[in-house]
């Protein structure tokens, strides 16, 4: 009888302590610290003192009205969109091909391994590699385009805003479409196979099956890919920072490159950088909340809805009785 009263619940707390401590020290405290710095005059090397500004919101006002910060946000959005649209389209196309049971595409394993590969290579290396590949006037890409007769004169990709943004977006696309493809294929493999069989018996074509069964069932995973890609896109740093150092004419400065430049490259405006970080944090938190909502436990939600409905019914009934 005595044995039964032993409670092991305390170990649940014990074993969570390292995580919680590391989180508090290295995540939460720095986040609060960043928030506080956002309201101070902290700028210049080797300063750590905290002086809250007379108008505490000055840094936020300055950042939000800064044309460079606005430019960095719009660059981030532009580069992300030009990477995400081709990424999801090609990933979906490959998913449709690789999971089509009649086509039986061979060597899928090799294709997947090669297409996913750029994703694990150091982004810093890839940024420099593409800087060399898109060299002007001599560079592999220019040589290739000239050789194939697509252009008559070498293009200076690094000097024009839209080619520079285009190359950054292409690198992001190239690094990530394999990742999205594998996630989408896993999603298709998770769909109940009897659905496809039934559709085939009913005489549906492969295209119909893809648009009427596969795609609607993949909705959550596509949404998951969209939101995680957007959050990842907001953190885009290595490639825009090293590819053209944010240039030409600030065309590839992203939000995180802006934060880095404010704080660590010459100007040491920690307070401005902190304010920009918090604005970025708010945007990411909103996207996270959307993701949280998308990925929430469906059954739990349904159950709660049912409970709410029952309570409402009960109240309605009670009112009727009262009348």
């Amino acid at each position, binding site marked *: 009888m005595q044995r039964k009263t032993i409670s092991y619940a305390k*170990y649940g707390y014990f*074993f969570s302590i390292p995580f919680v401590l590391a989180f508090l020290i290295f995540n939460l405290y720095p*986040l609060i610290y960043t928030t506080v710095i956002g309201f101070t005059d902290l700028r210049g090397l080797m300063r750590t003192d905290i002086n809250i500004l007379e108008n505490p919101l000055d840094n936020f006002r300055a950042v939000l009205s800064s044309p460079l910060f606005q430019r960095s946000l719009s660059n981030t959005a532009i580069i992300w969109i030009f990477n995400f649209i081709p990424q999801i389209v090609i990933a979906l196309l490959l998913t449709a091909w690789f999971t089509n049971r009649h086509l039986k595409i061979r060597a899928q394993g090799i294709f997947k*391994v*090669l297409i996913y590969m750029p994703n694990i290579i150091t982004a810093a290396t890839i940024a420099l590699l593409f800087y060399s590949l898109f060299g002007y006037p001599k560079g592999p890409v220019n040589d290739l385009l000239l050789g194939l007769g697509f252009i008559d004169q070498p293009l200076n990709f690094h000097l024009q805003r839209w080619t520079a943004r285009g190359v950054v977006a292409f690198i992001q696309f190239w690094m990530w479409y394999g990742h999205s493809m594998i996630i989408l294929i*896993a999603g298709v493999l998770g769909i109940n196979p009897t659905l496809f069989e039934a559709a085939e018996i009913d005489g549906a074509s492969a295209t119909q099956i893809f648009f009427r069964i596969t795609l609607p069932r993949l909705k959550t995973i596509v949404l998951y890919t969209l939101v995680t890609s957007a959050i990842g896109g907001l953190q885009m740093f290595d490639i825009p920072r090293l590819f053209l150092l944010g240039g030409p004419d600030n065309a590839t400065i992203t939000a995180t490159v802006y*934060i880095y430049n404010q704080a660590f490259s010459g100007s040491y405006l920690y307070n401005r950088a902190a304010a920009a*970080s918090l604005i970025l944090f708010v945007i*990411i938190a909103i996207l996270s909340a959307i993701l949280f909502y998308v990925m929430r436990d469906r059954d739990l939600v349904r159950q709660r809805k049912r409970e709410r409905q029952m309570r409402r019914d009960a109240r309605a009934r009670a009112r009727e009785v009262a009348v």
Partner: protein
Amino acid sequence: MNESMSKSRQVYKVIIYIVCTFLAILSIFPFWIMFMNATRSTFQIQQNSIGLVPSTFLMSNYKILMGKTFNPITGFINSMLISSGATLGAVYFSSLTAYALVAYSWKLRQPFFTFIMAVLMIPTQVNAIGFYQFMYRIDWTNSLWPLILPAIATPAVVFFMRQYLLATLSLDIVDSARIDGAKELYTFNRIILPIMKPAIATQAIFQFVFHWNQLFLPLILLTNNSKYTMPIMVSLLRGDIYKTEYGSVYLGLSMTVLPLFIVYFLLSKYIIAGVALGALKE
């Protein structure tokens, strides 16, 4: 009619193979040029920048590369220390936290899990300014610890490990260990961890690659070139001193890619499976 249908299917399949082959080449081609140009002289590269076969200038490129600030051995050692330490911390403590969430019923269990889900996507960049100031105050800039210790709290790995434990762990094993008189931490280390081996292997690969490739925080914290990591070494190749040394730049890039290539092609099966597994959160 049936014949024409199968014929059009054949054409369709040929198109698919062509597109897939093109995409596969698109993945390899940049790296192929990089490896080949690493063995070619600057003059050869200026003459024709696409070399499909190796040349003989590997050693001279190497000498030029090593004669300047680029030091791949220091970078390799530092990156190895950070990535190994961070991976170990992330995997062990995330498994422990996941075990706490699955094996014990405690009051704050559900709120704690909800909290982990909520902070899952918060990146380090948003608190980097406070983190830097904090590290500066305790004199931990130019130390590898601030790049290792935060990995103890990696919410994504906790989430993954929890899913794995929910699917595989039977609490009977834990109970029978208790009857045998085993302490709770001993049970975790000796019985639960071995059960989790497949999940640990997958997450270890991803954590290692993630920390190996990190640039943002190391770039902020490490200013002493004896502490530089591999990605910081790479960023040095962007500098003016290598501006005209095309062959050497390609060689430096190749040296940073080679270890990742070896790891990837040895483990690609597990890596692809791991990516797919990450998607089964639904």
